């Protein structure tokens, strides 16, 4: 169950970030993207509170940083941002840290 909640946190945060970023940059679609982003933010927050019920704080907070790695990858593929080497390196470090926590 804790992985489901973590997926809710990471998925909600990433969807919210992508929608906010795209919505704020592009006037077209802002009206629906930003409210939808707030909805995903709520999903992420509720998932975080529920994860805290069943998992240690020392796991929940660092593991939620996995969204940074997904944000970076999807910013490149969906938002067509140019991702520099240091950002990839940072995302890989975060992913590696989360994998260590998960074991």
């Amino acid at each position, binding site marked *: 169950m804790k992985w489901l909640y973590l997926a809710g946190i990471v998925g909600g945060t990433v969807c919210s970030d992508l929608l906010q970023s795209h919505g704020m*940059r592009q006037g077209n679609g802002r009206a629906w993207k930003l409210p939808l982003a707030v909805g995903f933010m709520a999903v992420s927050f509720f998932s975080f*509170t529920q994860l805290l019920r069943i998992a240690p*704080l*020392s796991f929940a907070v*660092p593991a939620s940083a996995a969204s940074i790695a997904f944000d970076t990858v999807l910013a490149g593929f969906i938002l067509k941002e140019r991702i520099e080497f240091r*950002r990839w390196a940072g995302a890989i470090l975060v*992913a590696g840290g989360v994998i260590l926590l998960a074991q």
Partner: protein
Amino acid sequence: MRLRVWLLTFVVVVANVGGNAILGYAMKQAPVEAGVIGSILQPLAMVGIAVLIAWMLLRMRLLGLADLSFVVPVTAVGYVLSALAGVFWLHESVPLRGWIGTVIIMAGATLTGLTEHNPDSENRPVEVLAHSGEDRPR
């Protein structure tokens, strides 16, 4: 650096770690039968949520006073300090692998954040720049 920035930085870090720790403690105390809404409507959970909202607003204020390259590592330190709060306040046990993972996450978050100095320039997609009527990056 000005004293005001250091004080605000201290408050931001304390609010981040404190909010997470209070919320974590409150959620562990929630009765099993309390649902999603019921669990966050406990008084202590609402205090934790209020502290986290204050953290978010204070961090925005700090971003207005200090460089992103200063604020981002401060935020990333919160991952390690939250784990420490879990150990010392909530009596959690973290294996060595967990500490190594947490420190690696902090380093990765810092490295990723430090590359976001100038979001308005070269990283913006060309079609977005064209749509917004702005000049192309020089």
